């Protein structure tokens, strides 16, 4: 099962009215869903909301009790399409995914959903992967909300507010017949805090009720002329309804301050960092009491024009604080103020950084810059300045420090089955030189980083195969596409493989089958040995590719490194014209260890004979060239100071986290590295025969060893 188990934490979801709930952001959000009487939930994993999917998966029992349907959807598009259940029925539904990538995948279904409109409250929880710690390209989800006329909630990041806003989101969605996004940043997802719980609610209308009373409304189908009607409805009915609801329920908040000729307009998610920045210049306190008035947008789309005009009408200037580009809100604000003929000037990007995360530093500097222009008298104290004494007489300069500190790029885990496969490609590179390789999202993306540096492009999840299409018919060097099993099932089978068959693509496609969506935390996929509900493999990659018409399909065990190398070479040189697929098998080591470690432990405990393997490097014969590391990058294969003072270069060393995957030995053999590698087979609970053999051997060996030692002792220095 998934890398992190929430089996214990999900019990907190049973908390009732008045109970104190302590926990992580994602858990709080799950609790809020249950308090809202949600009827079905789903989504697709990806940081920072992978754990939300894991929480839902681990809450199966509680969800069943409440009659809530849960589904681990095949992709974000699947999840978005599932929301169509709320078009014809008053069903409350929620799904989650990583944004903006997931929203990109889902956007076809989302456009249609938004056009038809919803009857039941429909919420999409977006894990906004932006800023420090993000793993994707930096874009805003804001554009999706605007283009499809869906609302965007961006709550102040503390648990009570987040929970409250999620509950309100369902009401807002229903009041305006519009699906909406509930945006959570990385830190908010991982936020630990507390709030006062309410009772969980069974859905007022369940999926069972819907099936028993089917309802069809022809005008909700996405075909002309209804689509024209939908557009009209969006503008004339749903939008005003949303604005009315937001105003009536005061979803946006105004925090008054004494200095009311200036003000800050901000996205809810940035509230805490704004308060901290004000605090540090003595303009707010920890309780949030502020001297500068704030207009906090817990709903960042749609904007409430007259609220904004009211807030700004007596001010000489406001600073609009929105993160990322383009600055949609700032642009809209200019239009709103212009229409209202306000004299208030607007500062925004330019005063604050044009792009990038608004860290405490950036925010602090931006707010100070703004106040310097309009209220320099307020800038009296600055707590930060005391932390940086004006005369910093450091003997170590920042430049020295940059040189002294090495980068720490991420990499594959200890014993990862993808590593031997990348090592094999690396060895082939020595034969052929480099080839064009299309990489993919997932653990396999780490192949693009040192030490392997394999892969020219990453185009999106499951798009590794498709992204080599342009190179498909040149009869010279074939290009290689790499794709993980997660990406394969997400869309790679159709977008990549089926398309390659149809176009008679001559490239080599490698699918890494590690048995899980491993990069996101080890969730099950159709080719896993089991699913959340059943103990069987639902589909194999081999059947799937053959099913779409691939004729050249080979399967190989990843650790058989020489065979992998030979097979890839065969695929690269084979006279066969057409897509050639190699499925490289090797179970994700994290998952395997999690499953097998306790079993081995208990076998050893009960006296059963067991052999544990791990590797060892002889420091005496290691020459410190580190060729083995350049073919591996395994965290457990590291270096240590050379015990021989004559050598200045550190020697290779295998630490105790080694799981004995065997790659080191295979590498040493396959690329004729050095004689320093040895595999230790530790025998637990040896049999009588083991013991007899051992003692006979040892008596001879130790006798000879002693003889040699004595000889060496004859002359010492």
């Amino acid at each position, binding site marked *: 099962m998934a890398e992190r188990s929430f089996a214990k934490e999900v019990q907190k979801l049973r908390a009732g009215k008045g109970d104190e709930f302590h926990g992580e952001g994602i858990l709080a959000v799950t609790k809020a869903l249950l308090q809202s009487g949600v009827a079905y939930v789903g989504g697709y994993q990806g940081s920072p909301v992978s754990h939300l999917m894991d929480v839902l998966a681990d809450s199966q029992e509680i969800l069943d009790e409440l009659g809530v349907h849960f589904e681990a959807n095949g992709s974000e598009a699947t999840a978005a399409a599932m929301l169509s259940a709320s078009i014809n029925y008053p069903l409350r539904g929620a799904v989650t995914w990583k944004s903006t990538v997931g929203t990109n995948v889902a956007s076809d279904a989302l456009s249609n959903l938004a056009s038809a409109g919803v009857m039941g409250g429909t919420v999409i929880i977006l894990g906004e992967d932006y800023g420090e710690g993000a793993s994707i390209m930096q874009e805003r989800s804001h554009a999706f909300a605007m283009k499809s006329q869906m609302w965007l909630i961006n709550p102040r990041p503390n648990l009570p507010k987040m929970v409250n806003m999620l509950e309100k989101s369902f009401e807002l969605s229903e009041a305006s017949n519009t699906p909406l996004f509930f945006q959570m940043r990385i830190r908010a997802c991982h936020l630990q805090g507390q709030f006062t719980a309410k009772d969980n609610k069974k859905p007022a209308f369940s999926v069972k009720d819907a099936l028993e009373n089917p309802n069809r409304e022809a005008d909700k189908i996405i075909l002309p002329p209804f689509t024209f009607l939908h557009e009209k409805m969006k503008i004339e009915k749903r939008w005003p309804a949303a604005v009315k609801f937001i105003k009536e329920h005061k979803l946006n908040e105004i925090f008054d301050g004494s200095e009311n000729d200036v003000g800050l307009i901000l996205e809810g998610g940035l509230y805490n960092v704004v308060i901290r920045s004000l605090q540090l210049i003595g303009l707010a306190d*920890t309780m949030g009491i502020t001297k500068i008035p704030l207009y906090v947008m817990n709903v960042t789309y749609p904007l409430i024009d007259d609220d904004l005009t009211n807030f700004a009408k007596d001010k000489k200037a406001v600073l609009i604080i929105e993160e990322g580009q383009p600055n949609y809100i700032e642009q809209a604000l200019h239009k709103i103020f212009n229409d209202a003929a306000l004299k208030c000037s607007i500062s925004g990007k330019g005063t604050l950084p044009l792009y990038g995360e608004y860290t405490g530093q950036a925010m602090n500097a931006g707010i100070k810059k703004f106040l310097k222009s309009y209220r320099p008298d307020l800038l009296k104290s600055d707590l930060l300045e005391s932390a940086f004494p004006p005369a910093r007489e450091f003997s170590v300069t920042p430049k020295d420090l940059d040189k002294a500190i090495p980068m720490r790029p991420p990499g594959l885990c200890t014993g990862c089955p993808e590593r031997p496969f990348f090592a094999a490609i690396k060895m082939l590179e020595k034969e052929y030189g480099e080839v064009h390789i299309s990489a993919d999202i997932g653990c396999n993306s780490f192949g693009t980083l040192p030490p392997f540096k394999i892969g020219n492009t990453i185009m999106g999840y499951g798009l590794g195969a498709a992204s080599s299409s342009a190179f498909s018919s040149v009869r010279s060097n074939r290009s290689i596409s790499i794709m993980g099993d997660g990406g394969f099932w997400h869309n790679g089978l159709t977008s990549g493989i089926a398309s390659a068959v149809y176009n008679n693509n001559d490239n080599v496609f490698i699918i890494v089958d590690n048995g899980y969506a491993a990069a996101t935390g080890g969730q099950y996929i159709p080719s896993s040995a089991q699913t959340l509900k059943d103990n069987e493999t639902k589909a194999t990659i081999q059947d799937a590719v053959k099913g779409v018409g691939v004729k050249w399909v080979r399967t190989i065990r990843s650790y058989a490194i020489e065979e992998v190398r030979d097979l890839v070479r065969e695929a690269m040189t084979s006279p066969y014209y057409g897509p050639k697929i190699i499925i490289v098998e090797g179970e994700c080591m994290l998952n395997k260890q999690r499953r097998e470690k306790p079993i081995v432990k208990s076998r050893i405990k009960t006296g059963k004979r067991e052999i544990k393997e791990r590797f060892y490097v002889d420091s005496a014969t290691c020459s410190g060239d580190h060729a083995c590391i350049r073919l591996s990058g395994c965290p457990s294969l590291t270096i240590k100071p050379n015990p021989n003072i004559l050598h200045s270069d550190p020697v290779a060393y295998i630490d105790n986290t080694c799981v004995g995957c065997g790659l080191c030995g295979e590498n040493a053999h396959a690329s*004729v590295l050095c004689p320093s590698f040895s595999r230790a087979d530790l025998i637990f609970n040896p049999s009588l025969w083991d013991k007899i053999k051992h003692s006979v051997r040892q008596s001879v060996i130790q006798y000879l060893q002693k003889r040699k030692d004595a000889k060496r002792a004859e002359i010492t220095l």
Partner: protein
Amino acid sequence: MTDLKKTSSLEGKNASKEKNSCAKAPLFTKNRPLTIVISALGGQGGGVLTNWIVSLAKQKQYFAQATSVPGVAQRTGATIYYLEIFPKAEGANYDNPPIMALMPTLGDVDLVVASELMEAGRAVQREYVTPGKTTLITSNHRVYSISEKMHMGDGRGDSDTVLKAALEASKTLISFDMEKLSNKTGCMISSVLFGSIAGANILPFSREDFENAIRVEGKMVDINLKGFGAGFNAAQKNIITDIFKPVKTAASIAGNANHPQSKKIIEEINQLPLSARELAYAGCKSLLDFQDISYAEEYISILKEYSKIRNSSEHIIKELSRSLALWMAFDDVIKVSDLKIRAKRTADYRNEVKAQEGQIVQMIEFMHPRLEEIIGIMPVKMARFAQKSKLFSKFLGLFTGAKKYDSSKLFPFLMLYFIASLKGMRRKTLRYYEEKQLIDSWLIHVKTACEKDHDLALEIIKCQRIIKGYGETHQRGQDNFKKIMSALGAENITAKNITAKKISALHKAALSDEDSHEFNRLFAAL
């Protein structure tokens, strides 16, 4: 650290810092939660540590907020946790909670905790650590990153510089080897860190409160408490100076000679320049171990000779004692076999793989002898014949290729034992002959160069480092080395255009990439 003066001044500085920190400013004001940054690598228990602090604060009637930013995709990178705590007594309650930030503001961090030295360095680099405010608690052990590990020579980051920066940038620095303590107590490094935080007296909680937090969480309580105690004690002692220990150089080598010949060698070592003695002693020992006492005598007589050549210096002799010893004890099949059959090797091996007392451990050696290596241990004439005869080569080919031997079994052990015993005839082997020729030519180059240009000679000596490894790695190194020597011109004259700087650049390039791209580019430009 070699700069003794600076070491003592650093110590002094820290001592005065400690004094300052005694006069504590109030921790909380209406405007001020306590802020903590924790930087931990995957698997070091940063999450557990964060939970302990949250639960500790909760028990003591404090608001606690924690959040984290995992390293990219949560694999092997560092995760940064950020915590704020604020007393409920300050008028805050659940209906009116304090506003706590989700990320640190530079210059506003009270406590930075790092589980590894370079991560502490990164916290300093990012200016989370500021002199006016921050207590920095870090382990000084290293977890090497891939860029450091994959270097063809020594790519390690500079720990001394990082520690120095940490000391300068922090209000108080607490730094010691927490990994060692965690290994000793069998706990995760997080418990040692938790103990260090308690020992640093920075949070308004007692030792007992801290320990209760571990008990409340209830996982592996005994081991965690042990690690906690170790961290607590170490932090109270504020052990920060052990890293700045000066490298001690013995005035003269005492040795442990038991034979007239070896006693003579010790005497001769002690006539060498001071800074070369330790290396020369290690060199002699390794050559005695590699071959015999007369081989060590040969070595020492070369050092003696070279300490008398024109322009020779302490530096020259120091580098030469290192390089010459390493080269003379080249890695042939005899040496490798000899090292693998020793009792000490078995003991080291068992210790490192954590074998229990008396446990049976099979030692599966991965070998890949090539034809060249087998021919290399034949007497020169026979080897030359083998190189020419197809039939003989074919026969020898049977012994080459990927082999796995369990050296804890009799037959493989005896085979290695037999090869090791060929040591007596080593000086007749082809490999010895070839290495000797290369060494001799290199030594003449050094001498010739030294007469004109001391620094050039030094660089030529250092080039020995390029030749290392086995198989192709060794071949590539040797080829590059030979190229450099050829560029120097004939042995007894040094080409005019060659400078120390150029040789040093070639040396560096030879260790920069496996395909010798950079090396060949520079070489062509000569």
